[in-house]
């Protein structure tokens, strides 16, 4: 039996081995294998080759960059760095009719601009899930949600009571339970009058905890935390073993209330604020709060055990939690070091009450008990991103460079100059529990002479760096409008957009057939239920002039228009000359605007979004009969 087995077994195995050997010798490209080890992006490719995405081909990442005081979000493709869209959030934008439609007008309220500083992609189990993008407005204390199926702002919450400049927002918790909005400015609660001489007593810092209902697409304020009158700068949520906790950096622990440039730069150490959001959530549920201006306000001094302070080097800016959730890194922007703190040690110190004192009634944890490493990174360290291989990348504002160092050993590995001063940086999937480790975008706050001159104000810059190898490599520089403050980079296949709105015949105010378009008049209220289709409008199907709307001067007019072109990219628009009314209607969408017809006369109206060869002919009239 044994002999028989051997009879076929040996030749079979040796035959297979020879086959594999031949296959390896002839077909495996060893050069490629080696380069793949050195760098995922291909070590021998030039920077131009690594960023070239041919026409018709798509990028591998979306980069969502906050537009700062433009109030918008800029969307780029990575690695090509092509700007593919601007999403209006806190500022009207006429190309999208954003700020004129009934819905967007309601969302924007009385404000016509906002300062959008940070964006955050929603997360599931610490991974970007590509469902929603959150953003906050420092200027007017608001939070926004952008649906990533349509790339449209779907809700704006605010101004949120008691907040004053949520700078270090938005950051989301690992399962998008909360978006936290800690504020940069301290002020008396509810804008109440109190002279700056009463700063220490009357002024307060506040952190808002906002929740998002993914089904209803609605934001709401859950609770707030009362904090000392300091400036809260940046924050991050714990993850994995540190889930349930959050950390934010704070400066001006001096409590200066004028000439902050000097006043807030006196203390050698400021603080990180460590908070247990799961604990606070439970306390709030139990009723440990007072209602101030409609908000549930939790006071960590009255209910101790949830908020702690950790000393950090002078005037800190960024604080970032490592992908494994074991450490948090912060650096004083007026100190050349970055400190790596250990969450485990932090929890132990809290448990053992290993405190070095108290500030404003909050316990200060002993610095030496929680520090893991201090790293000499360079001048003006701000923000840190990660590659998922145990390395951190910190931007150096004053040095105009990015430092790479190992988190475990604290050893600096590499440093790369960028054109002028970087602020934030965004690594591919860099704020998630598993960064991709191939690209880093440095967001430059100043970009002197990088591009053709456009006069005294220079374009800002986004610089793409290859971080897949041991050494960083500069790949590309893309200009941007002011100011791409912060960004997140998400894998393109995680974003699942729709191309056409579903044909929902039950949608309020929608009309789906040309013959159903009609106008309803009630006294001085005129409601137009019309359709837009290549290449005409129908407002009143029964009329001999179906594309003309007759109203009387003083009438309140609402146009509800449904785009019945259920075809990709066949977007229509509607603008009325001299009436300052404009909207975009995407395929399958129903949109509306309302106005009072106070000027009498003849006002041509037209499709504003190029739709077909006969787009120019897609017009009509608003006839306003004089009183």
């Amino acid at each position: 039996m044994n002999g028989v087995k051997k009879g076929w077994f040996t030749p079979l195995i040796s035959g297979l081995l020879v086959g594999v050997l031949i296959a390896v010798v002839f077909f495996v490209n060893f050069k490629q294998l080696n380069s793949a080890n050195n760098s995922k992006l291909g070590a021998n490719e030039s920077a131009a080759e690594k960023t070239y995405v041919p026409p018709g081909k798509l990028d591998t990442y979306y980069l969502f960059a906050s537009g700062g005081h433009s109030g918008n979000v800029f969307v780029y493709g990575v690695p090509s760095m092509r700007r593919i869209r601007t999403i209006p959030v806190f500022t009207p934008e006429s190309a999208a009719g954003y700020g004129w439609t009934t819905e967007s007008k309601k969302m924007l309220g009385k404000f016509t601009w906002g300062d959008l500083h940070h964006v955050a992609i929603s997360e599931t189990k610490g991974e970007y899930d590509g469902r929603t993008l959150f953003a906050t407005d420092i200027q007017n204390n608001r939070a926004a949600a952008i649906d990533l199926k349509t790339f449209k702002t779907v809700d704006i919450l605010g101004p949120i009571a008691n907040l004053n400049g949520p700078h270090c927002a938005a950051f989301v918790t690992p399962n998008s339970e909360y978006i936290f909005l800690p504020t940069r400015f301290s002020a008396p609660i509810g804008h109440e009058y109190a002279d700056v001489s009463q700063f220490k007593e009357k002024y307060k810092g506040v952190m808002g905890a906002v929740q998002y209902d993914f089904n209803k697409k609605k934001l709401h304020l859950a609770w707030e935390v009362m904090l000392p009158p300091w400036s809260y700068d940046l924050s991050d949520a714990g993850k994995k073993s540190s889930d349930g906790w959050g950390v934010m950096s704070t400066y001006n622990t001096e409590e200066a209330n004028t000439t902050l440039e000097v006043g807030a730069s006196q203390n050698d150490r400021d603080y990180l604020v460590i908070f247990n959001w799961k604990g606070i959530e439970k306390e709030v549920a139990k009723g440990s709060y007072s209602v101030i201006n409609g908000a549930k306000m939790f006071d960590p001094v009255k209910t101790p055990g949830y908020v702690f302070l950790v000393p950090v080097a002078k005037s800190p800016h960024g604080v970032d939690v490592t992908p494994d959730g074991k450490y948090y890194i912060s650096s004083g922007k007026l100190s050349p070091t970055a400190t790596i703190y250990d969450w485990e040690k932090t929890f132990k110190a809290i448990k053992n009450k290993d405190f070095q004192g108290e500030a404003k009634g909050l316990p200060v944890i002993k610095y030496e008990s929680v520090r893991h490493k201090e790293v000499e990174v360079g001048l003006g360290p701000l923000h840190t991103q990660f590659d998922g291989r145990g390395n951190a990348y910190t931007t150096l504002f004053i040095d105009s460079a990015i430092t790479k160092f190992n988190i475990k050993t604290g050893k600096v590995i590499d440093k790369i100059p960028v054109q002028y001063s970087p602020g934030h940086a965004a690594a591919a999937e860099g704020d998630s529990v598993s960064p991709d480790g191939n690209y880093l975008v440095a967001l430059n706050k100043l970009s002197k002479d990088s591009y053709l001159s456009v006069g005294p104000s220079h374009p800002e810059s986004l610089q793409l760096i290859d971080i897949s190898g041991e050494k960083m490599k500069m790949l590309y520089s893309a200009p941007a409008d002011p100011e791409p403050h912060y960004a997140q980079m998400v894998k393109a296949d995680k974003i699942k957009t729709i191309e056409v709105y579903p044909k929902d015949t039950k949608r309020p105010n929608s009309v789906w057939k040309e013959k159903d378009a009609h106008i309803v008049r009630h006294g001085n209220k005129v409601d137009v239920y019309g359709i837009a289709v290549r290449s005409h409008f129908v407002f009143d199907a029964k009329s001999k002039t179906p594309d003309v709307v007759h109203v009387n001067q003083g009438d309140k007019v609402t146009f509800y228009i449904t785009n019945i072109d259920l075809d990709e990219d066949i977007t229509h628009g509607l603008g009325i000359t001299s009436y300052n009314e404009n909207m975009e209607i995407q395929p399958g969408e129903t949109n509306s605007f309302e106005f009072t017809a106070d000027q009498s006369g003849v006002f041509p109206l037209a499709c504003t979004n190029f739709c077909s060869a006969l787009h120019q002919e897609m017009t009509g009239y608003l006839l306003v009969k004089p009183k």
Partner: protein
Amino acid sequence: MRIWKSSLYPIGKILFAVAAALLIISIFFPWWGMTLVAPQYPEGLHLVVYPTKLENMNDLDILNTLNHYIGMKEVNGKDFAELKIIPIVLIAFAILSLLVTFTGKMKYGVIVLGLLCIAGVLGLYDIYHWLSDFGMHLDPKAPIDYKPFIPPMVGENQIANFHTTMGFKLGAYLLGLSFMLMVIAAWRFRK
């Protein structure tokens, strides 16, 4: 007539049973379709005709929108009474074929074959009728002045920027196969 009085061998009966089954199966598959490709629609717009319905209603909406430029009437599934009749006719044919199987009498087979021939011709004429009705009755006031045309039932043509391919689909082939099986049974397996 000998064929009228003859009967079938068992294998001939089976072929008629299979033919009946194919008739029923063909109800669930598309019979005819057209695909329109243009630079703006590289993935093509598809219109698929089942014996019971028109499919790809979304593409049909787009097609109707595009057709209005040359003044073509709106294509609407509800306008085709055939889509209600055809399945009934098919079931009737299937029952007749099974009658042949059970009785083994070729006279029923001849009736089925004869009626099928008539139905086939009517069916083909019906498609031609619709194609010419839609193609020849273009609104003279349409934005684009296009010469009336009759698209081929099977084949290709060019309408403005659209390259159109038309032809029979699986359901129609099943129907043809069913007819062939009956012919083979009548020709080879009868005594």
